[in-house]
C-alpha cells in the first residue's frame, strides 16, 4: 500500500463511525495501540553525512530496513544515531523515497551500485516511479547484455553438444550451426561451392561461344556444350535436393520448416529442373519451360544461409515496409499526374511519341529518376515546362523519403524492442497488482484467524501473532468492522468460485422445520449458499437429534469447510464467535475424511461448544494453513 495511505488510515477509521448505526453485528474490539503517539526525530549518519527525519516517515514502509526493527542493529549508543557505512549520495534518494513515496533513479549513477544500495536497504526496484522506470530498465538491460556478451566472448564458441541427443537433433544442429563439427563445416562449404557453380553456369551458358565448324552464327555456350551444362546442372540439383531432404528430415517441426522462407527458396531453386525433366519436348510448353529457367536464378538467394548480412538486409526491408509503401504511393501519384499532363500537352504534335497516357508513364519515370534516356522528348512549350517541373519534383519526391526511411528504420527498430519490453512489464505490473490485492485479502483473513484464536485462547495468541505493523492491525480491524456492519465476510477468489460451483450439488432436504427456521434467522443469504449454511449448521447442530437421527436418509454429500474461518453462527447466539475447528498455528496439513455419524451425539446445550467435529467421531482435525489461496477442505458426510 502506498506510503501516504498510512497517514490517511486514521481518517478512514474515523469515518467508520458512519457504519455504526447500521451495523448488523457488534463491532470487534480495536487493536491495542502500544506505539508511542509522539513523533520523534531520528538521526541517521551515513558515512559522516547526517540526515534527520521523523520516525513516522521511516515507519511508512515497514518491510524495508529503515522502517523495521532491523535498523536497530545499526544504532550507535554513544552518538545516539543510526550509522550506516554506505554511500551518502545514494542515501539521499533512498530517504526521498520515504518522504515522497516515489523512488527516483539518478541518471548519473552506475546501475549496479544503485541496485546494490536498494538491496541493502530492502527496497524492491519495482517501486521506482514511472518517471524513472524506463531509464532504469534500459540501463539495466544494457548492462546485462554487455556482461553477457563479455562472458560469451570469453567462453569457447563451440559449446559442447548436449548429451543424449538423437541423431536427428545432432543433424539439425549441424545444419543450423556449421561450426559444431567438421562434417558440418565441410557440408557447408560444399553447398556454398555448388551454389556458386550453379549460378555461374546459369550465367555462362548464355554467353555466345565460338560457333562450331560449319556455322556462321554465334551460339550461346549453353547450346554448344549442352551435355556438359546438363551434367553440371544435374549434379547441383542432386546436391540441393539431398540437402533439402536432409533438412526436412532433421527439422524439429516439419510444418514450420516447410513454411519458412529458406525452404521455399530451396524448393523454387530445384523445381525447374524436375519440371523440365518431366515435361516433354513440346513446342507449346517450351516457352513456359524457358520461363522456368529464370527461376534458377533464385539459387543465389540460398547464399543468405551463408551470409548474415543478407539476412539483416532482408529484415531491414521488411521492417521498413510501410515507409517503402509510402514512397511507392507518392511516386505513383506523381507519375500519374505528370503522365496525364504530358500526354495532353503533347497531344497535338505530329509524330509525338506520347501516344497514350500509359506510354507517358515511361517518360515520367525516366525523367523523375533523372535518368533521361531521351527516347521520348516533349516538343511543345507546355510540354517542356511541365517536363522540367516533372524532373525537379522527381528529385524531391525520391530524395525526401529516403532519409526518413533511414531514420524511421532506426526508430522503428528501437521502438519495437521497447514495445515488447512494455508488454512484458505491463503483464508483470498487472500480476503485481493482483498479487497485492490478494495479499491484502489474505493478510486480512489471517488476521481474523488470529483474532479468533486470541479471543478464545490467550496462550496460543502469543504463538500466532506475527510481526505485523500497527498499520496492518488497524487496517484489518477496519475491514472487520465493515464485515460486521454488513454481516457478510470477505473471502478469496477460490472460495467464492467454489461456493458458486457447488450450488449445483444435489441436496436432499431432510431437515426439520426447526432447523430451517433457525437458518432463516441466522442467515440472510438465499439461493447460492443456503445448503452449505444449513449443512454447516447441521454440523453444529449435530448435538441435536434432529438431523443426525435421520442418518440413513442422508446421502453422500460434499461439504466445504473454509479453513480460514467458519461463519460464527451457533445455535442460539448471533454474537458469539466460535470457530468450529480447533486451529493450530503454523501447521499445514489437510485431510479429507469421510465422516460417519453413527450415533446421535450427546445433547450438550452448551453455549461455548467445543468444536463440533469433536462429537462427531472420525473427522480429523483440520489445521489452519498459513497459505490461504487454495485451501478448502472437502468433507463428505454420510
Amino acid at each position, binding site marked *: *500500500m*502506498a506510503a501516504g*495511505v498510512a*497517514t*490517511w*488510515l*486514521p*481518517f*478512514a*477509521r*474515523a*469515518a*467508520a*463511525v*458512519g457504519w*455504526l*448505526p*447500521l*451495523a*448488523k453485528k*457488534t*463491532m470487534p*474490539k*480495536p487493536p491495542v495501540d502500544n506505539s508511542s*503517539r*509522539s513523533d520523534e526525530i531520528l538521526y541517521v549518519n551515513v558515512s559522516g553525512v547526517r540526515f534527520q527525519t*521523523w520516525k*513516522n516517515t521511516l515507519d511508512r514502509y515497514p518491510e524495508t530496513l529503515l522502517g523495521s526493527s532491523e535498523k536497530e542493529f545499526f544504532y550507535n549508543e554513544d552518538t545516539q544515531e543510526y550509522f550506516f557505512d554506505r554511500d551518502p549520495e545514494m542515501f539521499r534518494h533512498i530517504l526521498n523515497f520515504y*518522504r515522497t513515496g516515489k523512488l527516483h533513479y539518478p541518471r548519473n549513477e552506475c546501475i549496479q551500485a544503485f541496485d546494490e544500495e536498494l538491496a541493502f536497504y530492502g527496497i524492491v526496484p519495482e517501486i521506482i516511479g514511472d518517471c524513472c522506470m524506463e531509464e532504469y530498465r534500459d540501463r539495466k538491460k544494457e548492462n546485462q547484455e554487455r556482461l553477457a556478451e563479455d562472458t560469451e566472448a570469453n567462453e569457447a564458441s563451440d559449446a559442447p553438444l548436449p548429451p543424449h541427443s538423437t541423431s536427428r537433433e545432432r543433424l539439425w544442429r549441424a545444419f543450423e550451426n556449421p561450426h559444431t563439427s567438421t562434417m558440418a563445416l565441410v557440408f557447408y562449404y560444399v553447398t556454398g561451392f555448388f551454389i556458386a557453380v550453379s549460378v555461374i553456369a546459369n550465367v555462362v551458358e548464355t554467353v555466345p561461344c565460338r560457333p562450331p565448324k560449319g556455322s556462321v552464327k554465334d551460339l550461346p555456350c549453353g547450346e554448344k556444350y549442352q551435355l556438359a551444362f546438363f551434367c553440371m546442372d544435374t549434379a547441383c540439383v542432386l546436391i540441393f535436393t539431398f540437402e533439402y531432404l536432409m533438412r526436412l528430415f532433421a527439422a524439429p517441426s516439419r510444418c514450420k520448416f516447410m513454411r519458412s522462407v529458406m525452404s521455399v527458396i530451396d524448393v523454387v531453386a530445384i523445381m525447374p529442373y524436375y519440371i523440365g525433366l518431366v515435361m516433354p519436348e513440346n513446342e507449346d510448353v517450351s516457352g513456359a519451360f524457358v520461363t522456368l529457367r529464370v527461376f534458377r536464378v533464385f539459387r543465389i538467394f540460398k547464399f543468405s544461409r551463408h551470409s548474415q548480412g543478407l539476412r539483416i538486409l532482408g529484415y531491414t526491408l521488411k521492417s521498413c515496409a510501410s515507409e517503402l509503401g509510402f514512397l511507392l504511393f507518392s511516386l505513383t501519384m506523381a507519375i500519374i499526374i505528370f503522365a496525364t499532363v504530358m500526354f*495532353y*500537352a503533347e497531344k497535338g504534335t505530329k509524330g509525338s511519341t506520347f501516344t497514350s497516357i500509359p506510354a507517358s508513364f515511361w517518360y515520367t519515370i525516366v525523367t523523375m529518376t533523372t535518368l533521361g534516356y531521351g527516347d521520348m522528348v516533349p516538343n511543345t512549350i*507546355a510540354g517542356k*515546362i*511541365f517536363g522540367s517541373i516533372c524532373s525537379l519534383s522527381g528529385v524531391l519526391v525520391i530524395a525526401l523519403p529516403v532519409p526518413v526511411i533511414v531514420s524511421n528504420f532506426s526508430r522503428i527498430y528501437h521502438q519495437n524492442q521497447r514495445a515488447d519490453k512494455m508488454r512484458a512489464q505491463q503483464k508483470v505490473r498487472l500480476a503485481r497488482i493482483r498479487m497485492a490485492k490478494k495479499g*491484502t485479502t489474505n493478510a486480512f483473513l489471517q488476521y481474523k484467524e488470529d483474532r479468533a484464536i486470541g479471543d478464545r485462547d490467550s496462550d496460543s495468541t502469543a504463538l500466532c501473532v506475527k510481526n505485523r505493523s500497527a498499520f496492518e492491525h*488497524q*487496517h484489518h480491524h477496519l*475491514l472487520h*468492522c*465493515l*464485515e460486521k456492519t*454488513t454481516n*457478510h*465476510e*470477505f*473471502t*478469496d*477468489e477460490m*472460495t*467464492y468460485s467454489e461456493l*458458486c460451483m457447488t450450488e449445483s450439488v444435489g441436496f436432499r432436504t431432510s431437515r426439520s422445520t426447526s432447523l430451517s427456521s433457525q437458518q432463516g434467522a441466522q*442467515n*440472510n443469504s*438465499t*439461493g*447460492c*449458499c443456503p445448503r452449505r*449454511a444449513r449443512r454447516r449448521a447441521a454440523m453444529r447442530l449435530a448435538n441435536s437429534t434432529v438431523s443426525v437421527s435421520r442418518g440413513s436418509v442422508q446421502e453422500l454429500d460434499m461439504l466445504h469447510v*473454509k479453513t480460514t474461518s467458519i*461463519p460464527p453462527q451457533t445455535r442460539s447466539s448471533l454474537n458469539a464467535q466460535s470457530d468450529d475447528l480447533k486451529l493450530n498455528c503454523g501447521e499445514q496439513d489437510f485431510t479429507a475424511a469421510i465422516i460417519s455419524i453413527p450415533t446421535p451425539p450427546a445433547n450438550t446445550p452448551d453455549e461455548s461448544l467445543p468444536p463440533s467435529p469433536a462429537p462427531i467421531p472420525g473427522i480429523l482435525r483440520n489445521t489452519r494453513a498459513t497459505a490461504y489461496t487454495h485451501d478448502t477442505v472437502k468433507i463428505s458426510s454420510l
Partner: protein
Amino acid sequence: MLTMNLEGLEMIAVLVVVVLFVKVLEQFGLLEAGYDDSVEDELELSAVRHRPEGLEQLEAQTRFSRKELQILYRGFKNECPSGVVNEETFKDIYSQFFPQGDASTYAHFLFNAFDTDHNGSVSFEDFVMGLSILLRGTVQEKLNWAFNLYDINKDGYITKEEMLDIMKAIYDMMGKCTYPVLKEETPRQHVEVFFQKMDKNKDGVVTIDEFIDCCQNDENIMRSMHLFENVL
C-alpha cells in the same frame, strides 16, 4: 516567337511558372505576406492553494491538542501539497483501503459529509473539524454526524431511497468475493430492518430525533461509539 497562341494548357503552364516565381521571391523576403501577429494571451491559471487558519484557532475550534494538529497537518500536506482535497483524490485515497470492492460511491457520500461548506473541496479545516467530531466528540455529536452522512440531500429526513443508496454504497465496498454471496436484495432488506428499528411513527422517513433516540436506546450502538476514540 513573340506572338504566342496561348491555349488552355499553355496558360496553365505559364500560371504555374508565375506562382513558383512569386514563392521564390517571398523566400527572399521581397514580398511580404501579411501575417497577423498572434496575440498570445496566456492566462496563468494559478493552482488552487489554500493555507489553513492558524494553529491556535484550530486548537480552539477542535478538540485536538497542538501536537496532534501538527501531526495531522504534516500528513495532510504531504499527500495534498495544495492544501485541499478534491473529490477525485478523496475517492482514490479511500478506495485504497478497500481493494476488494468499489469504494467510490461511499467515498462520494463521505466527501459530502466532510465538505461542510459544499465548495467541492475539503480543506484542512473541514478535515480536522470532521475528525474532531468523529474522534473526540460526544455521542450526540457523532450520531448527528452519522445522520448528516445518511441524509444525502440534507433536508433533515432520511428517506428509504437515501438509505438504500448509502446501503448499496457500503455493500459495494465489500466487493464480489464475500461469504455468504451478496444478493441483490441484501441492501434492501438491510434498509427494511433499519427502518423498522428507527422509524417510530412509521411515516416512511427517519428524523434526527427518532434517529438519536433510537440509537441511544440501543446498547450495541452506544458501546461501539467509543470504539474509534483512540485512533489518533
